[in-house]
């Protein structure tokens, strides 16, 4: 199988970072003429994976794009051929004021959740550098626990924690003297507390990855650099601000970008919490709005247009992440 292993090709075409460790060119190997079979081999090997991706993602994506230019409602589901309507679905989407409400809401939710996640995530990483072994290990373990928790189990627990009558949160708040929380329905009473709970669940799940990655990056910072700064009289805060954080900046930016992407397309949290809330119209974000329009309302044309807008949004954000990856030479 691995027919094309001549070191010349490896050396010539691979960025240094991607070169397998220890894969130094062996002396004496020489380029060989490749038969047609050998040249075709990589494409044959890629056949199955490519086919799978095309089936699972490629075809639906093309189909969605086509459907977003069609009138595709209930009638079409029962066999009437869909009719091309040009950009009408997109026009309907962007002239619907509710769409802009949902977009604004999604962006706000994403911005707040991502910012809070990064704040806690990086904060914990710095904190872990300044504490003794036992607290550090305990914090690390607690974070891994939260990270490993299946999202749906976590959401069920959070729903129980904020349950109006017997939930822990209301009990705690009322025992602290805040009587207005007696029987307060966090999910149903107001969109603000609904999104607060949703944001807490998202932050709780997302912080571990940020902390553990940032902490790993921080521990790899050359200690001599830090000590040199210390000798020059830099205070703890100054060392953090001007020495440590700039060094781990690329990692943090990457994590921030991933966070923004994930929080933009959030679906599970909102959908599950909505089951305990009732009024979906006040709490829809992009993901659940697409669902309601398409699967719920049967208007697949509109829903496809919406989903395409969302896809383009997320891929645009992703593009910067990819460029960062490429710049780092990981390809």
């Amino acid at each position, binding site marked *: 199988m691995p027919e094309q292993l001549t070191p010349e090709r490896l050396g010539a075409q691979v960025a240094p970072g991607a070169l397998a460790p220890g894969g130094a060119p062996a002396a004496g190997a020489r380029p060989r003429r490749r038969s047609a079979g050998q040249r075709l081999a990589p494409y044959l090997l890629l056949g199955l994976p490519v086919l799978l991706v095309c089936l699972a993602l490629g075809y639906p994506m093309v189909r969605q794009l086509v459907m977003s230019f069609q009138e595709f409602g209930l009638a079409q589901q029962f066999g009437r051929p869909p009719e091309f309507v040009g950009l009408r679905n997109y026009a309907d989407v962007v002239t619907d004021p509710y769409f802009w409400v949902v977009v604004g809401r999604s962006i706000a939710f994403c911005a707040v959740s991502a910012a809070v996640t990064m704040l806690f995530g990086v904060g914990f990483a710095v904190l872990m550098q300044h504490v003794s072994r036992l607290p550090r290990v305990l914090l690390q373990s607690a974070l891994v626990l939260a990270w490993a928790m299946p*999202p749906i189990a*976590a959401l069920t627990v959070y729903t129980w924690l904020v349950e109006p009558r017997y939930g822990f949160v209301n009990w705690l708040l009322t025992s602290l003297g805040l009587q207005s929380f007696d029987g307060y329905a966090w999910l149903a009473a107001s969109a603000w507390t609904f999104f607060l709970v949703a944001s807490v669940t998202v932050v709780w799940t997302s912080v571990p990855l940020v902390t553990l990655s940032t902490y790993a990056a921080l521990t790899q910072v050359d200690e001599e650099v830090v000590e040199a700064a210390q000798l020059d009289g830099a205070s703890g805060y100054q060392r953090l601000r001007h020495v440590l954080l700039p060094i781990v900046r690329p990692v943090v930016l990457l994590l921030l970008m991933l966070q923004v992407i994930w929080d933009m397309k959030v679906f599970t949290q909102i959908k599950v919490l909505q089951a305990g809330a009732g009024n979906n119209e006040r709490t829809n974000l992009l993901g659940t709005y697409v669902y309601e329009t398409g699967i719920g309302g049967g208007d697949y044309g509109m829903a496809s247009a919406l989903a395409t807008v969302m896809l383009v949004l997320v891929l645009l954000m992703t593009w910067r992440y990819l460029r960062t990856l490429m710049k780092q030479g990981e390809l």
Partner: protein
Amino acid sequence: MATTEAPTPAARRPVTTARGRHRRLWNVVALLFAALWAFPVYWMLNSALMPAERLRQNPPLLAPLHPTLDSFAGILTDRVFWTSLGFSMAVTLLAVLVSVVGATLAAVTLSRFRFGGRRAAIVAVLVIQMIPAEALFISQYRMLDGWGLLNSVPGLSLLYVGLVLPFTVWMLKGFVDGVPVGLEEAATVDGCSRIGAFFRVTFPLLGPGLVATGVFGFLVAWNEYTLAFVMLASGDRLTLPVWLQTFSSNVQETDWSGVMAGSSLIAVPVIVLFLLVQNAMTKGMVAGAVKG
């Protein structure tokens, strides 16, 4: 995650009192946050071990003083739990099996061959990885509906392959990159065919990587909610996450203990697997990078 412990400068210096006091303060802060982050998991287990009636009283009991396994027994005698477990298992295993086979082919090709379009293929892997399931489920639903595969194992598995395969390729490629090409070449010098060299030298070294990647894929598919929820909405076959959600919205008025027992039954094996594979991951990487 693999975290190397580096002694902080303060640990190696004689501790002055001011610094010692700061450290104590930070220690307390860290412990508080650790408790805060672990609390939901603790509360899940606490509530699951409590008799159902006790959860309908205030104030709540902060620790299960008289633990009972009644709620677990209730779940384990629920037929729907077992059929959902079976369905989840079938969907996930099929998806992971297909993904790992496909990903191994792709990873080895991308790592060991130089061919036209290789770079484009790698970029494609990264881009595809970023496609949110949430933006495609409308047409995926139409597609499965058209093929009569809604509410079926192969239908959902196919979508999970789309979810799992791209990052599996990426992870496995890392592992294959980590096995020195020189090892295989040495084997060919010793008279192995190239295919033989791959299977006798590289493949065994990939073992830990394959296991770790497979388990990661398993966890992703096993925990998945969005696609399962959409594709199974019209039938009576459920994956475990969808079962838990349906179960909890149906019975939560009366039986929070049962819901928490269900959550625990889903969460505990996943957490254990997650911890195991974290170790295997680091070991696999080390094995790949160091040996040879």
